[in-house]
């Protein structure tokens, strides 16, 4: 299943109302009256042959993904359109567009906030459920490459690619502490890209390009919530199918690490306990269902589906955890 642009020619724009979507919107209205006031008609995205298509909203350069900000929704940062889309993960329709002044490079959500990292401005901003900017995080973040949240601790972990460290903020944007920078090469960060939080183990996982010119290969650094280094996942010792060099977004669930490699066009699945490769999901290519410069992955707990951004094709591909594209 694919969300976003299709290889075919543009079609005449069509607006359709979904009964299920309307029911969902009604539920939202009961919970959040402000949302009802601002809610517009649901606009289906282009989905290809399975559903009616409307080119009115198209993904141009989807980069990062996040679950939320509302139940059953996804936040999608579009780098070149400078917009964060809030998408219904079931209906695959747009709930809201949040325009950004800079370049949205990271997204995360902790109810009631949607956090957006701006690469151009070096800031992280918080928006409410209707897309209104509410506050900015304390200080500058350099280059917010990705973000993850701890719902239990109400913390926001920001991978700062410029400072090569993880900055940890409260849900209100106050800097609490940071880690990963200025440490030993083996345990520290060099060129961090993606970040994920494992609530079961209370661990923070950070993908890192490493420094190949100095013999430091790409890796995933694993820290405790407080920043104590626990393990490093590299391609060393892995089956050739699990060798990676351009690690990007991460997701963690059920003892499995889902790692996107933007060069391979695949999602590599590793076992957290042994750090060994388990399976490879997706394939490189530009056809519907394939991945071309994938940058992020999120796993929907209720369904087990994996949503993966395919940046070059302007789509989000949905992959079943078993490995088959439905």
């Amino acid at each position, binding site marked *: 299943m694919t969300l976003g642009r299709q290889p075919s020619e543009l079609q005449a724009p069509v607006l359709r109302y979904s009964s299920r979507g309307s029911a969902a919107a009604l539920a939202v209205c009961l919970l959040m009256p402000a949302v009802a006031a601002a809610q517009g008609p649901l606009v289906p995205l282009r989905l290809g042959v399975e559903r009616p298509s409307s080119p009115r909203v198209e993904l141009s*350069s989807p*980069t*990062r993904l996040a679950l939320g900000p509302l139940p059953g929704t996804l936040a999608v940062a579009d*780098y*070149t359109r400078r917009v964060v889309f809030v998408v219904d993960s079931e209906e695959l329709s747009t709930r809201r567009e949040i325009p950004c002044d800079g*370049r949205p*490079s990271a997204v995360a959500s902790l109810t009631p906030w949607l956090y957006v990292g701006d690469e151009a401005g070096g800031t992280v901003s918080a928006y409410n459920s209707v897309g209104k900017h509410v506050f900015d995080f304390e200080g500058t973040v350099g*280059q917010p*490459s*990705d973000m993850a949240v701890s719902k239990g601790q109400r913390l926001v972990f920001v991978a700062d*690619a410029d400072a090569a460290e993880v900055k940890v903020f409260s849900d209100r944007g106050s800097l609490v502490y940071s880690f990963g920078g200025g440490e030993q090469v083996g345990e520290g960060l060099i*060129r961090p*890209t*993606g970040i994920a939080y494992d609530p079961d183990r209370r661990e923070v996982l950070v993908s890192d*390009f490493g420094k*190949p*010119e100095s013999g430091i290969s790409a890796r995933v650094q694993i820290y405790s919530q407080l920043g104590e280094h626990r393990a490093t996942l590299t391609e060393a010792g892995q089956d*050739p199918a699990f*060798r990676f*060099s*351009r690690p*990007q977004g991460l997701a963690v669930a059920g003892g499995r690490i889902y790692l996107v490699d*933007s*060069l391979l*066009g695949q999602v590599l699945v590793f076992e957290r306990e042994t750090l060994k490769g388990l399976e490879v999901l997706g394939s*490189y290519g530009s056809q519907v269902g394939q991945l*071309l*410069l994938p*940058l*992020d992955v999120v796993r929907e707990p209720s369904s087990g589906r994996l949503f993966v951004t395919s*940046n*070059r094709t302007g789509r989000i591909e949905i992959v079943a955890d078993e490995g088959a594209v439905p």
Partner: protein
Amino acid sequence: MRFAIPRFLFATLGLIIILLPAGVTRALNPNHDCTFCHGLHQAAGTRLTREADVEVLCLTCHGPAGISVFKADVHTNGFNSQYPPFRISCMTCHNPHDNRANRLGPHFHDRENIDVDGINIKLVGRRLDASREAAILTPNSGIRKVVFEFRGREIDDVETHSFADDDEDNDGIWDGACEVCHTLTKHHRNNESGGHSHNRGRSCTNCHAHVDNFIP
């Protein structure tokens, strides 16, 4: 039976190898280590590149979420463009290995009153003919020599030999990085036609950002 290879043959072979024309490509740009793009054991593409699609290879670092601060994208025109659709990829304009010498070579830039080493910046221009000078294979004008030594008035305070600066050397050659290909645009074509005064000498990418496909 012994096969004795004369020592002088070894020496000769070694000398030949050392003195071979520099057809061997080396990554002299310190930011582009060989292993970034090439791999002996995972070479899906041609010339041992790690990926069949070189454009994707470039964008893993220079695209969204990439580690480079120099963000870029391919050169295309927008949906509402009046021109025929086109798509120019990374290696049409850039040589990822090193900056090449341009057709001017080391020279005294008399308009700016400075000595210039005659090397293009930003890896612009490739070796496309026997001259080995920086050039671009344009869509409509064949191979054109390109001179790109400065990034324009606002950045280096040098407005010529940059993006688009008309026939700044008065030699009938429009060789700015953005000029060499243009034949239909309103401004800055690769010949005397059209207008050449549009923000002449300024950094085109101020308005035509590389990361936005150069679309303003």
